[in-house]
């Protein structure tokens, strides 16, 4: 029953969602939205699982005084203090909001800004004349980068137009082709799951 019950639930849920979308009498009742609410509620219950794992992993780091254990201590203190404070005062409280605006948001922005440097280092490594395809990548990347800055237009007035053409025609064509394949592939995976052929999530490799 350990594998049969989840498979049966999967099939029934899949058929139910299909009925909600394709059959007029069922679609009219808007039951799919109600089903989505159940999904959100079950996801909220799973939130506890993640919190328990965080407490266990970082708690062990602190107890064993592993290298950098003070980072784990800070994590757990902030986790509990901010959560309990938020539950008491709600998110409209100015002090709660201050932490969000002045600590969380800048830290988040800092991580996002790392992308700027990582893009430069990835471009430095990737844009090499190693092969025909790599050369095409290099030329296209240079034209698109120049087309996005005023310098490109100063060098040659047609560079922005070339960049627009590259983004609108070959780039869009490639992305749409990949997207089409992705949707068909996702549908095939869904079918395999409903037929019970895809069982990796049940913990069986066979």
């Amino acid at each position: 029953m350990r594998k049969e019950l989840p498979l049966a639930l999967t099939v029934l849920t899949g058929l139910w969602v299909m009925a909600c979308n394709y059959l007029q009498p069922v679609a009219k009742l808007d039951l799919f939205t109600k089903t989505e609410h159940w999904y959100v509620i079950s996801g909220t219950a799973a939130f506890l699982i993640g919190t328990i794992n965080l407490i266990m992993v970082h708690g062990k780091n602190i107890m064993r005084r592993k290298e950098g254990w003070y980072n784990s201590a800070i994590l757990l203190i902030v986790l509990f203090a901010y959560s309990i404070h938020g539950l008491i005062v709600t998110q409209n409280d100015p002090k709660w909001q201050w932490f969000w605006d002045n600590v969380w948001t800048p830290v988040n922005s800092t991580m996002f800004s790392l992308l700027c440097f990582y893009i430069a280092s990835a471009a430095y490594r990737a844009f090499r004349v190693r092969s025909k395809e790599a050369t095409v990548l290099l030329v296209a990347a240079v034209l698109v980068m120049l087309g996005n800055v005023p310098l490109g237009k100063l060098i040659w007035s047609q560079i922005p137009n070339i960049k627009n053409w590259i983004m609108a025609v070959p780039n869009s064509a490639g992305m749409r082709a990949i997207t089409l394949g992705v949707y068909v592939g996702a549908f095939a995976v869904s079918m395999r799951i409903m037929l019970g052929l895809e069982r990796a999530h049940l913990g069986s490799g066979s």
Partner: protein
Amino acid sequence: MIFAEGMIADLLVMLVCVVLVFVFIYRARGGMKVPAIRKINGLEAIDEAIGRATEMGRPVHMTSGLGAVSDAETFAFWAVLGHVAKQCARYDTRIINTNYDEQVYAINEEIIRQAYLEAGRPDAFNRDDVRFISNWQFAYAAGTLGIFQREKVAANIMVGYFMAEALVFAEAAYQAGAIQIAGTTATAQLPFFIAACDYCLIGEEIYAASAYLSKDPILVGSVVGQDWTRIGLFALIIIGTVIANFMADPKKSPLYVFLKNK
């Protein structure tokens, strides 16, 4: 009207896909010849990456990105995770799995535990190596970056749905000296993976992972059925393009009316 408005064309395309997949699954079950999946370098390199990590004595890292438990990409990740976990259990290589979604974390822990059990090494399974980091994108990225640097991962396998943190992971793992295999359906992140990773699975190649790694003829048959569906859709696109370009009023064509179902 028994079918919902605007859904008949969707339903027919879906039924055609279902029939094609069933035909090839039936052929595979009956022992008839089914076309083989072409070589996918990224999937071939998985064993090489695990071997490298084993030789270096450093861990393998796996993540499914921002995928939720209901995403097809996450199911593709689980196929790869099961295979990698079994190999790591067999070769006594440490596997670290970082997670963004709590439900995915719970399932990943069970898959890895089961893999160690099947390999006869239940004692070697370390629960602390399967971690929920955060369900905020950049907090998850920051936590995973720290793991790359501290644990000095030798192989980084990323299969799933990624957003801006994709390049952060790829570059940080490169700096840690890891071989990288990445696959995603997010077309905006594919260029970053192609530029920064050693091997990249593009779009639907990740969905072929379960069939490719298991070599199960029934799963291979379903992938072939999916490919035939795509060929049919391309034919529909070509017909639609011809109609749109050569008919006086394309909106009056029977194909347009059928697809719009008005």
